[in-house]
């Protein structure tokens, strides 16, 4: 350890009941250095960082900050040592303003001088190139604005060591670029930064060193300049994995959904979809690309019957009689059955299934405080006959999912809230797939997932496609959409601005379509 070391961890261990989240982890970060912390979901990254920021207390091990051994008992201890963490799930009070959140808990007594705080916040923003309005309420903010508030909050407290837990998982590529520019400014300012991200290209772009964890154990640290994504992946997973995504051709390729002139309003009464038309084929993965909030959510919900349709049609065609999934579901009266006007249960019975992973992951589809069995049952309880619920089938299903999808959990009766983010998503997507749908709609299924889990999900989607399912995939990562999908529908401001063949389209082409009608509006 030399004089330039900002943080040193030695043999840090932390257990949660039977789970050993961190097993004798040692780590060092220098001043003016960006360290990327890499590891699969559930490998203990968040836990380790939470011990630096005072949320958890280590069972064993030592911590040095600026060469001095310290004990961090609470978040207050941490920020007095100049450590600030931007948590994966933001820690902000929704009903307060940005400025109020920023000064929260600071020692000054008496009246709150809003003007002075606003001035100081603006000064920090200018120094590092942020853009925030100190008087805006948090609940009116976008995810990236909230993140900015979190970062300013940490800087306002004079942090010299910044920890960012998956900061880019919810950002658009442009927002990520902005964030990285800020991080580089901070690094130039002599601050130490630890960043957790699953996106290897980001690791390569921003970090100086990479530390890898696997299943709670420390694997090693490498200099970014001397490594590459493939090597990092191998280190993280423990065995060689291939980073190419398959795109097989399905046996049956038949029309499944036909959306015609669909118009919807969002929950705030603003037009969310305007005259949307496209088709989805069985045996195909149809990507839906667009800047966040372009109507993706409303579109999927309209198809699932959860969103009121103002006008337009959604026609459903049953699968090819010889395909694997034929006959699994309630037959429709005719080919081209209208789904608009049916209720969600009816639509689900026909075989249309929706797995939506919201920004906070737990917001939709799973009940956080219930265990896996109960969450499986939410979907299946109607099928059991008689007055009592059947717990055996969902339990078997839960156990099967744990095994097949390598879900890390102490057992089927642990509340899903306690699972790490990626594992929660596997539960959600796995459950939808288990209902053997004919149309599988999923939004952001790999949001925040590590490479290995992401590939598990891609494999699952491909399997469904090969069975003849029409897969609709709303995604954020254009590279992945272009590699995985057969066709891509591009949404912009609630309109379809193009349908491209993913085998031939380029990223630029899709990117342009994604921003097209926004341009038009600006002209008008």
């Amino acid at each position, binding site marked *: 350890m030399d004089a330039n070391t900002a943080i040193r961890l030695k043999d840090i261990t932390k257990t*949660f009941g039977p789970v050993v989240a961190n097993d004798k982890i040692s780590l060092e970060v220098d001043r003016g250095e960006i360290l990327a912390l890499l590891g699969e979901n559930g490998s203990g990254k968040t836990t380790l960082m939470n011990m630096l*920021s005072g*949320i*958890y*207390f280590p069972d064993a091990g030592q911590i040095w900050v600026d060469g001095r051994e310290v004990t961090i008992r*609470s*978040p*207050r201890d941490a*920020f007095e040592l100049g450590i600030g*963490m931007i*948590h994966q799930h933001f*820690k*902000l*009070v*929704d*009903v*307060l303003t940005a400025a*109020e*959140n920023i*000064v*929260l*808990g*600071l020692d*000054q*007594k*008496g*009246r*709150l001088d809003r003007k002075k705080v606003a001035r100081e916040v603006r000064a920090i923003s200018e120094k590092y190139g942020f853009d925030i309005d100190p008087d805006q*309420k948090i*609940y009116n903010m976008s995810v990236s604005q909230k993140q900015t508030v979190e970062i300013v*909050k940490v800087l306002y407290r004079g942090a010299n060591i910044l920890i960012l837990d998956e900061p880019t998982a919810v950002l658009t590529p442009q927002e990520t670029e902005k964030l990285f520019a800020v991080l580089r400014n901070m690094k130039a300012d002599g601050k130490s930064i630890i960043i957790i991200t699953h996106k290897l290209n980001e690791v390569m772009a921003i970090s100086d060193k990479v530390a890898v964890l696997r299943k709670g154990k420390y694997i090693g640290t490498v200099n970014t300049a001397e490594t590459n994504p493939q090597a990092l992946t191998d280190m993280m997973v423990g065995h060689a994995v291939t980073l190419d995504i398959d795109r097989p051709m399905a046996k049956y390729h038949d029309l499944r959904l036909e959306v015609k002139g669909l118009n919807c309003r969002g929950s705030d009464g603003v037009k969310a979809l305007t005259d949307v038309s496209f088709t989805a084929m069985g045996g195909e993965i149809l990507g839906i690309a667009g800047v966040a909030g372009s109507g993706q959510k409303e579109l999927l919900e309209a198809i699932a019957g959860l969103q009121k349709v103002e006008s337009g049609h959604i026609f459903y065609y049953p699968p090819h009689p010889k395909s694997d999934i034929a006959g699994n579901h309630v037959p429709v009266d005719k080919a081209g059955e209208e789904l608009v006007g049916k209720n969600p249960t009816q639509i689900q019975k026909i075989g249309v299934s929706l797995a939506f992973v919201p920004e906070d992951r737990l917001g939709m589809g799973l009940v956080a405080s219930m265990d896996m069995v109960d969450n499986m049952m939410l979907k299946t309880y109607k099928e059991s006959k008689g007055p009592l619920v059947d717990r055996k089938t969902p339990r078997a299903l839960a156990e099967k999912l744990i095994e097949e999808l390598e879900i890390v959990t102490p057992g089927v009766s642990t509340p899903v*809230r*306690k699972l790490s983010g990626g594992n929660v998503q596997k539960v959600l997507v796995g459950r939808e797939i288990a209902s053997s749908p004919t149309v599988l709609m999923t939004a952001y299924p790999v949001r925040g997932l590590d490479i290995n889990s992401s590939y598990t999900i891609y494999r699952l989607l491909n399997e469904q496609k090969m069975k003849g399912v029409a897969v609709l995939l709303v995604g954020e990562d254009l590279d992945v959409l272009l590699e995985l999908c057969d066709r891509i529908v591009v949404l912009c401001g609630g309109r379809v601005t193009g349908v491209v063949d993913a085998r031939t389209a380029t990223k630029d082409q899709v990117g342009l379509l994604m921003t097209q009608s926004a341009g038009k509006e600006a002209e008008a």
Partner: protein
Amino acid sequence: MDKVLSFVVAAVLAGTPLLFGTLGEILTEKSGNLNLGVEGMMFMGGVAGLAGSYYYEQAVSNPNPVVSVLIAMVCAILCAAFGALIYSVLTITLRANQNVTGLALTIFGTGFANFLGEAIGNTAPSRYMAVGNVTKDAFNSGIPVLQDLPVVGKLLFSYNFMVYLGILLAIVLAWFLGRSRAGLNLRSVGESPATADAAGINVTLYKYLATCVGGGICGLGGLYIVMNSANGVGGVWVHNCVNGKGWIAVALVIFATWSPARALLGSLVFGALSVMRLYVALGIPAQIYDIFPYIATVIVLVAVSMRRKRENQPPQSLGLAYFREER
């Protein structure tokens, strides 16, 4: 005209105990603790305050009204705060269910106060725990001189000191929650304890303090009920005297959407409804008048849940226990 004036005065007098209960509960709920023990704490405050004055009067030959009032208030606050402390230990430290604990506190407080009130009464020659006129008058007289002014005197200056104390408390609480740093910290504890904790706020301390001080304020409401003679009897222990006012205060917190300023208005409205029978003849049975406050509560509950303004929502983590390492 005179009748309207009397109605307003009676409404203010009837609304004041509700105001104390509401303010105490607002403070408590702002810390994320839903304490349904308001009724119980009012009982505890009422009986302890009365007992304090009662014993003081017994002990000295020439009781001083100011001392008697102070003793009553201190006893009321301490006893009710003690109830809140029990609640705090159970819900904050031991993380027991808040609803169950609050209900238990109400049951406990009611039984404790009725028992104590009657037990002490049994030792008195009159068979009642009653304070003398010195204390009673101190709790029931308006502002000298000013109250004799025509109209405004009665309208503004004829109330006992606790009415003004309640109004002052509402203003102070509004300032505290809206403008002070400690108030900001407290609100964040109620909204998101994890956030507050990560920001370095002592969540446990804030919860304890807000709940106990809030309980103490509720206790003053109970004291007011016991001491006020507007309804004919004052300064004497009456079996079951709080009689549901604590529950109305809990509803008023929602009516006021957690705002002390609106609590003033709400208490006045509910106070008016509860005395309406005596001033507005509608030719309907008395029992129907008695249910007006409850009907109003129901209507308000419905209206508030339909009006969905973000600032008017309950503190987000209301009713939930917090443990740092839990997720």
